[in-house]
C-alpha cells in the first residue's frame, strides 16, 4: 500500500503521515530522512522532527541521494520525508544524479515500494506562488512537479493535508 501525502509548509503533513504509519500493520517502522543539514537552522528543523517521532518506534535511515541503494526489511512500514529535499539533493548535490534526477528518484521509490509493506511519501506543495520562475528554480519546480505526478499515478492513495485535515484525491485513508 502506497500513500502520497502532499501539503504546503507547516500544513501538518508530517504529523499526518506519521499517523498513517502508526496505524499501518507493517513492522518495523522506518523513517527515511532526506534533509541534508547545512547549517544551524537545518539541525534545529531535524531536531524538531526527531522529537515529533520520539516514542513512535521509528528506526531512522538517512538518505540524501541514491534512494535505489537503500534496502528495507520485508514487511516494514516506511515513511519517506521529504520528496522536495530528495529532488533538490539529486539535482544539485555533487553526489546527486543531476540531469537524471527524475529517473533516480522514481526508480528508488519503485524499489522501495516492492520491498516494504506500507509506504508513505511526503511531498511539498510549492507550485501555487505564480508561474514566473526562471533558471534553476524553474528546473527544480519542473522536476518536483513531474515527480509528484508520477508518484500520484503509482500511489494507491493521494491526499493533500490542509492544516492537519487530509483531503483525498485518489483512494482514501488506508486501514
Amino acid at each position, binding site marked *: 500500500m502506497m500513500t502520497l501525502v502532499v501539503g504546503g509548509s507547516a500544513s501538518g503533513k508530517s504529523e499526518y503521515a506519521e499517523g498513517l504509519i502508526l496505524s499501518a500493520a507493517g513492522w518495523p517502522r522506518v523513517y527515511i530522512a532526506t534533509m541534508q543539514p547545512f547549517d544551524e537552522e537545518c539541525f534545529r528543523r531535524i531536531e524538531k522532527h526527531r522529537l515529533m517521532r520520539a516514542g513512535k518506534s521509528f528506526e531512522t535511515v538517512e538518505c540524501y541521494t541514491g534512494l535505489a541503494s537503500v534496502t528495507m526489511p520485508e514487511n516494514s512500514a516506511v515513511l519517506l520525508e521529504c520528496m522536495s529535499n530528495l529532488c533538490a539533493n539529486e539535482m544539485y548535490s555533487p553526489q546527486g544524479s543531476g540531469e537524471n534526477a527524475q529517473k533516480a528518484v522514481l526508480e528508488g521509490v519503485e524499489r522501495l515500494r516492492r520491498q516494504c509493506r506500507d509506504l508513505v511519501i511526503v511531498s511539498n506543495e510549492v507550485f501555487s*506562488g*505564480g*508561474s*514566473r520562475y526562471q533558471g534553476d528554480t524553474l528546473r527544480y519546480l519542473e522536476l518536483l512537479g*513531474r515527480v509528484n505526478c508520477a508518484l500520484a499515478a503509482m500511489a494507491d492513495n493521494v491526499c*493533500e493535508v490542509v492544516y492537519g485535515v487530509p483531503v483525498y*484525491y485518489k483512494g482514501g485513508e488506508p486501514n
Partner: protein
Amino acid sequence: MILIVGPLCSGKKAAAMQLLHCDEQELSRRAVWDVQELAAKSGDLPALAGELARYEAVIATEVGGGVVPADAEERAAREAAGRLCCLLARRADAVVRVFCGIPVVIKGELS
C-alpha cells in the same frame, strides 16, 4: 470548452491529453495553454476569452496565490490573468482543476 486549471507543473497538459484522448501534437490544435500569459498583453479580456473559447480545452496556470507582487506590472498581469480565468470559467461547460496529475471536476460534467 473545458477549462483546465492548476498550479505550475501539476500535470495540466497530460490531463488535457487524457480528457481529449489525444497526443501532444494533436493537443496543440485542439487546446491552448499558458493563457495566463496572454491576459497581460490583452486590452480586451472578454474578447480574448471569446477567442480562446473556440478551443476544445483552455489551460491556465493558477497564479493568484502567494503575496501580491511588489512590481506594478506583475501585479497588473496577475490581476488580468485571474479576471481572464473567471471569464473562461463562466463560459466553460466544465472546469477541471488538476492536483499532482489528478483531474478534479469543479464545475459541470465531462461528457
